[in-house]
């Protein structure tokens, strides 16, 4: 009998390791020959630990299992899965069934560290095709797919590759940005833990495409599980000829290593990330020059997000057309959307662009976890805008969000119920910016601190209107005067909170105190 217990950090955080140990003990006590596979997570975190048992009908699941449920579950497996924690056939769970999983197709199905299983489930086909068609057609395939940077900026990935491919240099680099610092996002983490070979394959294809022979994955230190998973998978990949002097026996060589961050949010900004790998303070570089021309150690470098690189093997294996067939407008393919915060069915939901915010939050997410009405959602991390339910008609699309003064970012959606104070959230955005600013440019370094002070005055009810005018003015300066998105986008959560939830800012006006004379 094969049993599956996710080894994903989000499952371990709610007791998966203890459940795996209990299953092992119980199986031994019953004399059952059971193999316990630590799979990746299916991404329905509300159900974790979600354990699965292989039966003749398919894999049946048991949600939110605790060690003392284990005996009953063994009884239930032989008895049509009759158990209070039973959720039936896992693939039939609506949250999973409604998804279009291109990037996360394998995640949660098998032991993520098994390269044989990876191959058996279609892995390495993309790299094999890239080797067969060669570098230039590989770049064009990515251009044609319409893939845009999944880290947040949405820049066409293929164009970046073309630029780096055309830059003559003896050494080029592939850098994978796995510094997933945005609150409400966990897709990079889940992918690295749940299907690490996919990322390795994506990076190898990128290396082949632009003529880079070495890659770095920069992973934040808050992700120890992902760091371990990637290091192990890289070792295995080397042993199996997926990395090294010859990629799968071809004339192309590629190798890579993991670099671990040290707790600086700003290192998710690409130039600051390069500084950090080079061993300096993670301060933002002015652009130009573009990293594609002068990047890591001064060499042409592609920096792509985990999800961008992980989308590439599908594009190569199935063709650009197959990927671009999904989506809407200039947002092609699928997006692994992350439903987080105060939401009933939180987790990873990969789907084609075009689904509306309302469908995601209300239908798929099931509304709030607290059962209270949804008041606001923040899309795109701490630098993303807050939207009220009246804007739930917005389709998930780069342009539609930009038009509504927001951004998709890394596609995290954080839900808040009606107990949230949006003036406090605006203040928090400034506080976060102040804590994480690299300090290189003044609008971000000083502006964020002044922002906290001004918003404190608003909240305290001191000269509310005058101070709100000051907030708007300050945001304008930060937006246009900052070097990177940290200072430049902090105005999004602040101004959207003010625009859509003015009552929270004006509350102080009722008790407004006379200015001191």
């Amino acid at each position, binding site marked *: 009998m094969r049993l599956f217990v996710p080894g994903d*950090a989000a499952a371990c955080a709610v007791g998966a390791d203890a459940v795996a140990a209990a299953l092992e003990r119980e199986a031994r006590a019953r004399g059952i020959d059971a193999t316990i596979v630590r799979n990746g997570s299916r991404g329905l975190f509300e159900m*974790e630990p979600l354990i699965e048992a292989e039966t003749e009908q398919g894999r049946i699941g048991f949600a939110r299992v605790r060690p003392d449920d284990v005996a009953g579950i063994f009884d239930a497996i032989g008895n049509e899965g009759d158990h209070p924690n039973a959720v039936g056939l896992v693939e039939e769970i609506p949250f999973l069934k409604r998804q279009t999983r291109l990037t996360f197709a394998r995640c949660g199905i098998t032991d993520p560290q098994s390269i044989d299983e990876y191959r058996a489930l279609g892995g390495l086909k993309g790299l094999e095709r890239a080797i067969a068609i060669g570098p230039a057609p590989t770049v064009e395939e990515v251009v044609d797919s319409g893939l845009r940077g999944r880290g947040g900026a949405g820049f066409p990935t293929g164009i970046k590759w073309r630029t780096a491919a055309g830059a003559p240099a003896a050494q080029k680099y592939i850098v994978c940005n796995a510094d997933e610092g945005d609150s409400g996002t966990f897709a990079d983490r889940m992918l690295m833990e749940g299907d690490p070979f996919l990322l390795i394959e994506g990076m190898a294809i990128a290396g082949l495409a632009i003529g880079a022979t070495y890659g770095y994955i920069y992973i934040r230190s808050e992700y120890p599980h992902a760091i371990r998973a990637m290091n192990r998978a890289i070792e295995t990949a080397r042993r199996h000829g997926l990395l090294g002097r010859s990629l799968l026996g071809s004339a192309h060589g590629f190798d890579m290593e993991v670099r671990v*961050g040290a707790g600086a949010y700003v290192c998710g900004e690409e130039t600051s990330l390069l500084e950090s790998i080079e061993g300096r303070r*993670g301060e933002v570089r002015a652009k130009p020059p573009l990293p594609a021309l002068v990047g890591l150690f001064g060499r042409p470098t592609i920096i792509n997000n985990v999800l961008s690189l992980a989308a590439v093997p599908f594009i190569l294996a199935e063709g650009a057309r197959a990927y671009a067939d999904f989506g809407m407008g200039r947002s092609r393919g699928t997006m692994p959307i992350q439903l*987080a915060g105060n939401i009933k069915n*939180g987790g990873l939901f990969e789907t084609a662009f075009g689904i509306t915010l309302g469908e995601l939050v209300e239908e798929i997410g099931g509304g709030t976890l607290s059962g209270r009405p949804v008041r606001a959602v923040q899309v795109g991390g701490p630098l993303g805008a807050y939207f009220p339910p009246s804007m739930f008609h917005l389709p998930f699309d780069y342009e539609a969000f930009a038009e509504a003064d927001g951004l998709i970012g890394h596609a995290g959606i*954080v839900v808040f119920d009606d107990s949230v104070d949006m003036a406090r959230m605006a203040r928090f955005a400034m506080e976060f910016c102040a804590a994480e600013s690299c300090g290189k440019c003044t609008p971000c370094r000083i502006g964020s601190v002044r922002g906290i002070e001004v918003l404190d005055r608003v909240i305290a009810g001191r000269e509310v209107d005058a101070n709100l005018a000051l907030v708007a003015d300050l945001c304008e300066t930060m937006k246009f005067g900052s070097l990177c998105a940290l200072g430049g986008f902090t105005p999004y959560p602040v101004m959207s909170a003010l625009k859509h939830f003015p009552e929270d800012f004006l509350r102080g006006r009722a008790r407004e105190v006379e200015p001191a004379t």
Partner: protein
Amino acid sequence: MSGQELWTVDEAEQIIRRHAGRKGALLPILNALQAAFGHVPGGVVPIVAEALNLSRAEVHGVVTFYHDLKTAPDDRPVVKLCRAEACQARGVGRIAPLLEADERIHVETVYCLGLCASGPAAMVGEAVFGRLDDAGARQLIDATAREAVR
């Protein structure tokens, strides 16, 4: 704390040697020193600078830039508590005072552990904890304090 030094030059040099050949070796070295000694002692800064042909100011600048790198060791076990938006939405504000009031542990604010649908979330060492309520937070405090004494 007994007042004894928590590190030796020998150990520090060993760690530095292990990474010194790598490109961009500074951050891996500092992370390794932090992991081994619980902080990056001021005394190792010149040793690192010398080994990598950097100025002391450059090394000091890097040590003080990154939140993970500490210039003094913590005398209590550290609980990293996520206070970012998703955990705020899931009620970290309710359990935070409980953790902060306990003097056996030191609560450090972090922004995001990637457990945004499983919060409130915390991390101790490399172990992660989710869906923390009052009871869970108390358990976490006790377990962390006990572990540190042992």
